[in-house]
């Protein structure tokens, strides 16, 4: 029997999940294809870009990101922000070592 207040989330239609799965498969093939091309210095950003799109798909659809509270999004963005801080500032040290004073 349904209790007084309605269950929290209305489950998404099955087709949405299958479509997302299809999209993820396509993007995986795209990643492999992009891997074999020689984009020179652009190969890593492209690979990471595709991976980020796939991760975003998983977060938004599979992990119900679309219907989550804004606080969830703050947590997601915080994790990306602090990871970038760590990688970025560490790389800044290693990259700027060669520059003469």
């Amino acid at each position, binding site marked *: 029997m349904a209790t007084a207040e309605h269950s929290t989330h209305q489950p998404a239609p099955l087709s949405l999940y299958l479509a997302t799965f299809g999209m993820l498969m396509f993007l995986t093939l795209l990643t492999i294809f992009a891997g074999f091309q020689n984009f020179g210095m652009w190969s890593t950003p492209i690979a990471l870009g595709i991976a980020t799109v796939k991760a975003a798909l998983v977060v938004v659809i599979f992990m119900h990101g679309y219907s989550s509270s804004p606080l969830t999004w703050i947590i997601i963005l915080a994790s990306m922000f602090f990871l970038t801080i760590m990688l970025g500032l560490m790389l800044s*040290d290693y990259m700027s070592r060669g520059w003469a004073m």
Partner: protein
Amino acid sequence: MSIVSLETKTFEKFADVPSRNDDVNYLSHDFSITSWLFTLDHKRIGLLYLVTITLMFLLGGALAGAIRLELLTPKGDFLTADTYNKAFTAHGIIMLFFFLIPSIPAVLGNFLVPLMIGAKDVAFPRLNLFSYYLYFAGSVIALSALLLGGVDTGWTFYTPFSSTYSNSYVIVMAVGLFVVGFSSILTGLNFIITIHRMRCPGLTWFRLPLFIWGMYATSVVQLLGTPVIAVTLGLLGVERTLGVGIFDPRLGGDPILFQHLFWFYSHPAVYIMILPSLGVTSEVIATFSRKNVFGYHIIAFSSIAIAVFGFIVWAHHMFTTGMSPYAAMVFSLLTFSVAIPSGIKVFSWLATMYGGSISFDTPMIYAFGFLGLFTIGGLTGLFLSTLGTDIHLHDTYFIVAHFHYIMVGGAVLGYMAGLHYWWPKITGKLYSQFWGKLSAGITFIGFNFTFFPQFILGYLGMPRRYYEYPDEFQVLNVFSSAGATILAVGYLMPLVYMPYSFFFGEKANSNPYGGSTLEWTNTTSPPSPHNFEKTPVVTEEPYHYHAKEAAVVSH
């Protein structure tokens, strides 16, 4: 009224919150051992932490005593070189990971966060108990590492010494810290969800007590920083067992990478230690000046600012390692960004006291001590953030003095202030104000006597972690060791009069100091097992003090 009033003052004028029956509170409703060891009640878990942490503090303090005794004489004649190295490593590890990081969040935080936000318990009680047992297991593993033979790498575990050259029990200690790290993560997680989702009706974010803001900022830092030290210790373990050269320069690795990964956590860790004390001080100064906190929003946001800025400044520990000068300048500039919020807090507290009605109870005396020492500690940080002076002062006793002023002068005095302020709520008993103020005074004097000479020693150039030192440093070292004995007395006194008050102290009513937060106004001392008879509804902004004939709480 004399400044130091000796008799214990109770505020009978404040309405006592009647509980259904006086004898049933969270302490007396069940005396069995299992009810304590398997309790899910956040208040009892707080007390479990209190006992374990006090033992760890005493062990760390004893090691500090041994170090200060050794440094009385230039030649090393009390301990052998190896034992001295193991002593200061153990002192560092125990005091930081097993006392300072868990002290206020686990003891006062566990007890007060649900009470202050009108909740029945933390969001995940079972997880809370699991955190305690993780802390307990971590400390058992760490102590076994010390008993097996100790660790001689310093609490920073710098490679390649810790990974290839040290033949002490580094891995056992690393496992211990790995385990205790997760206890810190899970406590932080618990508090964040509790504060977000379990506030009572009417308690908006800007009606929250500032202690809760401090705990929230601390939990954010615990959540974001601790996993990185976990994976760093994991890599150190892999490097030490398999010798695969991730940090070993002979095999292509880079020891500076270890320092980057280590300090990415360990600098925010010092903000885990100080933020709770900043929260406690806001509460104590507001209550004992009986005046609302000046610039509430600014203080709340400055706690969050300190938590976030704490993550972008870590490389000021590495200015002399030969990192690139440009990166050093970037980190030096960023490090100044942390000094500003700390300054704002201190000036706002002064403005809070301005025009207040200040009573000199023990917590307030500790808070005065905190104000002075935290200011000196913070300002000496400016020497180390400025590139020009940091080169000379790095790895000298100036740094030892700086972080002791912040940790011992700041965090521990804040912890003592909090303990004395909420003791009547935790135990329902009043401790003797005379002994409380006396111990605060002795601690303050002993502390300054111990650590101020070390600033001068540092400027003279005496390096850290020296077992033997040149003769010209002896005079100041003797001063410092003498001061340490006074400090020891100051710390041991609460161990006497606090337990004494627990058994023989005078019964405290529900609001002896006239506090304005929910735990004072809506719960009995000590609180009932389910905290509140009825879930409170908050209708006013925080720190709103009323004239004494306040309406009795309707129930």
